[in-house]
């Protein structure tokens, strides 16, 4: 396959970036998208040019490290797929492909296609956990009875890998789906009830402090989420927050 790539290049966080055109030939349709970028980088290194920086880790669709806005969509045109699981057979020979970093004020570009998603980590640190006594007398979580429906709902929410595709897809750069999933996974379990009030308040406050936009229910996040996190998680977040604030 021969492809025409338009890729965002940016020297560092302070520099002004721009789209740069590349042409790449001999791409196997069975390569993953990241392998295609690897091939391009080998080509650039051979030409004594600066390779393109991009995030990746497990390349198995579970770590949430890879990102990339591909042809205007987070993780590309496939549904329920991360960039590392996207294959070149989804494109046609001669295609022009736009590759950009996820864009949001809370996701500043570090270099080229690499973004700083530590805002998600700070939101998690604000309340996305349950406090467990690890003094040696820890009670196994499985000893607490949980009904099947609640367990399944909590598990579905916990499937969020925190990649940031929801923010990238949203016209408002809202992190509501991510925060909603992290709040919901505990809201549906008995272990999460003790800190439910502070969790909802602190995580929502941190989300706003990071500069994410608000949710206008467009549903883009749900469609683009590689893990199929449902929009209903946002309704749960809203309900948990209102419950928390009325409790005081």
């Amino acid at each position: 396959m021969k492809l025409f790539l338009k890729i965002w290049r940016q020297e560092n966080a302070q520099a002004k970036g721009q789209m740069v055109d590349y042409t790449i030939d001999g791409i196997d349709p069975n390569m993953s998208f990241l392998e295609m970028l690897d091939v391009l980088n080998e080509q650039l290194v051979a030409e004594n040019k600066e390779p393109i920086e991009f995030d990746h880790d497990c390349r198995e669709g579970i770590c949430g490290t890879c990102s990339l806005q591909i042809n205007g969509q987070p993780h590309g045109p496939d549904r329920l797929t991360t960039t590392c699981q996207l294959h070149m057979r989804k494109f046609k020979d001669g295609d022009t492909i736009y590759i950009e970093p996820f864009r949001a004020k809370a996701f500043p570009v570090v270099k080229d296609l690499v973004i700083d998603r530590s805002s998600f980590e700070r939101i998690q640190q604000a309340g996305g956990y349950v406090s467990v006594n690890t003094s040696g007398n820890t009670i196994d979580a499985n000893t607490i009875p949980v009904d099947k429906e609640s367990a399944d709902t909590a598990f579905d929410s916990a499937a969020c890998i925190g990649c940031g595709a929801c923010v990238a897809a949203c016209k408002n750069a809202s992190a509501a789906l991510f925060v909603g999933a992290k709040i919901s996974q505990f809201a549906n379990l008995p272990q999460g009830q003790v800190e439910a009030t502070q969790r909802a308040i602190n995580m929502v406050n941190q989300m706003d402090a990071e500069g994410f936009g608000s949710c206008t229910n467009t549903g883009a996040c749900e469609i683009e989420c590689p893990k199929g996190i449902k929009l209903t998680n946002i309704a749960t977040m809203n309900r948990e927050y209102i419950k928390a604030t009325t409790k005081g």
Partner: protein
Amino acid sequence: MGRYLNTTVAKKFAMGLSGLFLVSFLLMHVTVNFVSTVSPSVYNSLSEFMGYNFVVQLLLQPILVIGVVFHFVMGMVLEVNNRKARPIGYEKFDKSSNTTWMSRNMIITGIVILLFLGLHMYDFFFPELAYKFGNGYDAAQVPDFYTGLVAKFQDPIRVGIYVLSFVFLMLHLLHGFYGSFQSIGWGDRNSRALKGFAKWFSILVPLLFIYIALFHYFGSL
């Protein structure tokens, strides 16, 4: 408590509540207006009640005005904040692949509805202020509301503007009505039934308004 109300979630909750309140007003409004196509005398009685009743005029009407103003101002505040959340846009952003036009352009449909409200107030609200609040209730001064309504819908340009505005109202409701439930945290409960109800309400109510406008225009030709 006050610090909690400043978050985006609280603001969206307030937007959702005010939206649902305005939807309930629309239902009442379309019901009264529809009566005008069935019985002019009942329409006149209902209009007289709405126009002169103390509770409606001095309690519900101010709440309605506050609701409209709040919904619009909060919508603008959230829109401005949302634009700040992505200072550098995409070179290519395929929004149509994952969202509807209605969901992306609530601010546009909202502004069109607000402009329409200006015309609507000019047509029906401001002319009534004098006799409603001027000299108190006087049965002899009560106008023939039905005749006044029909007279307004003789101008094809005005009818066209009304019909177009109701189309924008439909687009606004098609996203906003169900979205309001989501914003107040009800979206995941009975969501299929709620979605269906919100969708048909959003289509039928503006269609009824259009029918009423066209009924009076063509009925008098």
